Every structure is written in C-alpha cells, then in structure tokens.
C-alpha cells in the first residue's frame, strides 16, 4: 500500500465519523428544516446515478450493454449480488462479442 492508500482511509474515515457525529448532535435540527431535509434526501440517489453515468461516459459499448442488463436485474430481483453477477457476466460476454 502506498501513502495515498493510507491517506484515503484516514480522510474517508474522518469524514464518515464526522457525518455520524453531525447526525448525532445536529441531525434532528437539520431534518426539521425543509431545505436540508430535501438536500439530504435527494443527494445520495443523484450521486449514485452520477457514479453510474461517469462509469458509462468513461467506458465503451460493453459498459452500456452490461449496465442495461444490470438495471433489468436490479429492477426484477432487487438483489445487489444477483445484479453484480449478471452485470459482470454481461460485461464479459459483451467484451468477447464486440
């Protein structure tokens, strides 16, 4: 592991513990305010969508095909493991065919 690996663990840990503490100390007050409640409700879904979008924008046609398969699997099964396995399988197959 490089120093960057350790720094990433430290920074991610500090931010996550920090957010849990904010939730403990000020969460109720923040959730009582419609603006913050809305931001905290909506942001995670938008960020996950953005993560998928960036992977597809940086990837090729095999990524798009595998994403469609994974999306169908997620909608039907609602199971993260099945979605991951089917998405990865589709990615390998699409890579072979294309």
């Amino acid at each position: 592991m490089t120093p960057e690996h350790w720094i990433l663990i430290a920074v991610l840990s500090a931010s996550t513990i920090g957010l849990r503490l904010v939730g403990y100390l000020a969460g109720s007050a923040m959730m009582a305010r419609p603006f913050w409640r809305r931001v905290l409700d909506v942001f995670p879904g938008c960020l996950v969508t953005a993560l998928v979008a960036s992977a597809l924008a940086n990837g090729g046609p095999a990524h798009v095909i595998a994403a469609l398969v994974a999306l169908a699997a997620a909608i039907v099964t609602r199971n993260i493991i099945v979605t991951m396995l089917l998405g990865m399988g589709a990615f390998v197959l699409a890579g072979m065919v294309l």
Partner: protein
Amino acid sequence: MRRGLLAILPLALGVALYGFAFGILASEAGFSSEGIALMGVAVFAGASQIAAVDQFLNTGTVLGAALAGAALNLRYIGIVASVVPLLRELPWSTRLIALQGATDENFALTLAARKDDPSVGGRFLLGTALGLIIAWLTSTVIGGLAGQAIPDLERFGIGFAFTAAFIAMARALWPGKAAMAPWGTAFAATVGLVWLGVPTAGALVIGALSGVAMDFLVNPDDA
C-alpha cells in the same frame, strides 16, 4: 442485545457477500488485508467504501475518491438522527460503537422492530451493529485475501462490478417517479461533463448537485 444480533443475521449474510466482493476489488486497487480491515472498522460504510475505492482505482486521486465516498455518506445525518433516542439509552462506551455501527441495514430494521415492540431499544441496535461489523470485517478481509490469491480478475468482469453495485444501490434508493427528473438530470449532466473533459470527481459532484437543483425546480411541494 442478543435479540438484535439474531434479528440482523439474514441481512448480515447479504452484507457478507457484498463485503466479499468489495474485498476482492479493494485488493485489486492495491489495499492490503490490514488496510481493508482498518477501513472496515474506521469507515464502516459499504457504499462509500465502494465509491471511494472505485474512484481511487479509476482516477488515482485521493481527493476525488474521498469526496465521492464522503458525499454518499451525507445520508448518515438522517439515519443517525432517527436513532438518537435509542443511542442515549446506552452508556458512552457502547454508545460510540452503536453510533459507528449505524448503517442503512440496521437502523431501518431496529426502527421497524421498535414499532411492533416498544421494548426494542439501544441494546437491540447495538446487537445489530455488532453483527454487521463482524460480518463486514470478516467478509471484506477474506475477499481481499481471495483477490490476492486469484490473478487476472479482469476476465471475470471485475471491472464492471462496481458499476453494477451502484445500479443495484440506485434501485434500492429509488423513491418513485418524483426522482425521474433529478436523477435524469444528474445522469445527463455527469455524462456531459465527463465528455467535456471535466475530471471525474468534479463531474460527479456537479452532476449530483444539478440533480438536487432540478428536484427543487420540478417538485416544489415535496418539502
């Protein structure tokens, strides 16, 4: 506490499978078993660990990786806020463990159990937290060891595993039709920014914030 531990078992098994996959991917990104174990305890937030390691693997920048992981954890403010009364029942030593162990999986389970049985409280939450911490730590470290033992994981499509995990998370987070416009905006904005050459970390945050802004525009009565 034992009741909480037993109640979380089925969910903990699911978490373990997911943790195993994360361990493989983290070792792919160059994390040692010690590093994976330390991250598991010190961060203990699966989705953000995945997002951060994914960004680290693809962009190599600590800041972008940490930003993506931390941003995903904003939801913990709401999660922890909802269990504060239960946390207050615990002494400080175990209260901190339960606070660090509060995740999507166990806060919902605990609050649902409390609705049926008012005697469910802080100790139940602590039991669920301990169950998940044990499952997450063991599975991620075993996954990391497996990742080191099996070379050339690319041929199993590991490069797409994270994206598939995010798609499954999106499905779990989907709140209904009201999310169509904000999520669509976040998706389109992120793709556009990446294609314009904006670094991925910046594209992610700006893209997600555009989605939030769109939500304020199209769903005015939601607040």
